């Protein structure tokens, strides 16, 4: 237990620091790069919780897939990748309100749920467990997510398709 606490604070500091740069940074490419660092911090936290499958998938999908597409889009639009782009817009107040609300919701959930969080889950092989649970108890949300992804795929195809005449 002794080593876990400083490691947790270290990872949490990296995640929050990087996330702050993402939101407040002036150069949008630097922001995207910090986002990678923030995702890594989160992946580290997963490892700390013995959820190494989740950590690997987090890096594989969020860092290797989503953020690289984000960077791709930023670089293709040269106006956005230049320095001096306006980072904050007029919805600042609204988003602060929502973020604050979410923060208090999390605090409330944590305060209510502390006994549940304290349980150490046996995780000798969490990959088979996740697979089994996804295909049995949570098969409906799993399928709904699949349909959503399929819809996004079809939508992207329609947008990208060249009109023939």
């Amino acid at each position: 237990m002794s080593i876990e606490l400083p490691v947790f604070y270290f990872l949490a500091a990296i995640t929050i620091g990087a996330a702050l740069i993402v939101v407040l940074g002036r150069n949008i490419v630097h922001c995207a790069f910090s986002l990678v660092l923030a995702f890594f911090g989160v992946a580290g936290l997963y490892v700390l919780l013995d959820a190494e499958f989740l950590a690997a998938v987090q890096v594989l999908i969020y860092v290797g897939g989503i953020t690289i597409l984000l960077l791709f889009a930023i670089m293709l639009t040269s106006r956005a990748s230049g320095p001096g782009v306006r980072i904050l817009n007029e919805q600042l107040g609204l988003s602060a309100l929502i973020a604050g609300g979410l923060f208090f919701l999390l605090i409330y959930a944590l305060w209510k749920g502390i006994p549940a969080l304290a349980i150490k889950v046996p995780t000798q092989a969490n990959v088979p467990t996740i697979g089994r649970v996804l295909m049995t108890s949570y098969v409906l949300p799993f399928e709904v997510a699949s349909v959503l992804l399929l819809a996004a795929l079809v939508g992207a195809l329609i947008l990208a398709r060249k009109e023939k005449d």
Partner: protein
Amino acid sequence: MFEFIIIMLVKIAVVFGALLLTVAYLTWLERKVIGDIQVRLGPMRVGYHGLLQPIADGLKLLFKEDIIPAEADRTVYLLAPLVAIIPALISFAVIPFGSQVKILGRTIDLYITDVNIGILFIFAVASLGVYGIVLAGWSSNNKYSLLGAMRSSAQMISYELSMGLSIVGVLMMAQSLSLVQIVKAQSVVWFILLQPVGFLIYLICAVAETNRAPFDLPEAETELVAGFHVEYSSMKFALFFLAEYANIVTVSALATTLFLGGWQGPLLPPVAWFLLKVFAFIFLFVWLRATLPRFRYDQLMGFGWKVLLPVSLANILVTGLIMAWR
């Protein structure tokens, strides 16, 4: 605990050293083999048959002037080579290169670590390699660099998908994500015989992922000068090349582990078998470069999305059906 740390450090040092040495001599091997194929001698001057050439090249690169373009984004420009090289070296941490040996009465496993998500770890780390290229291309503030980086990221994302799907058949048969378990599952028959389609797709994607000919569009000399690394010089340039060659070694080692039974084989010691198989793959890489012309960009993307992806999905389906039926 203390003993564990010592053993671990020694193992890391040995693997790291062997990897860097292999990478350095890969440049020599490549020039020699291509020279042979093109009926030339290749490097001959430095040492016996040019054996000291990699060391001379390394020294030369170290002492070259390090140029940073005036309009470059300095921080990102300096970080990009590191972002390219670190993932290339780190994935070797989970590759098993032998069974067990007894040294001074202790049994030592011949891998640095066996995490139970080994293969996912490698894919996660490998997916970071593209950042080095993209950031290098963007931060150089050069049209050719940016175009090279764009091409590269599109190519690597596309082929990463098929690569990931191509090994799912192997994972289904081995029933594990741990590379050690996957090697052990092949003690009777190698997966190349059970998953020939998966192997072929993996091989094609591996060539594309490492940006090698015939898929070396990110650095196509004729159109892009040199692509993403055109502004880099000195040791930073060398780091990009080190990363490319380290990636070749990694995908070769992974192919050996997943499809050719890893370190298993008769007569010779396990480590020798592992090295032999890896070098066979590396030779294939060089051979391909000397033989095949470069793809056109639309051919490359079309092939990846319209051929490799459906075929790898069909491979998973067929594998699943057969496994369910048996």
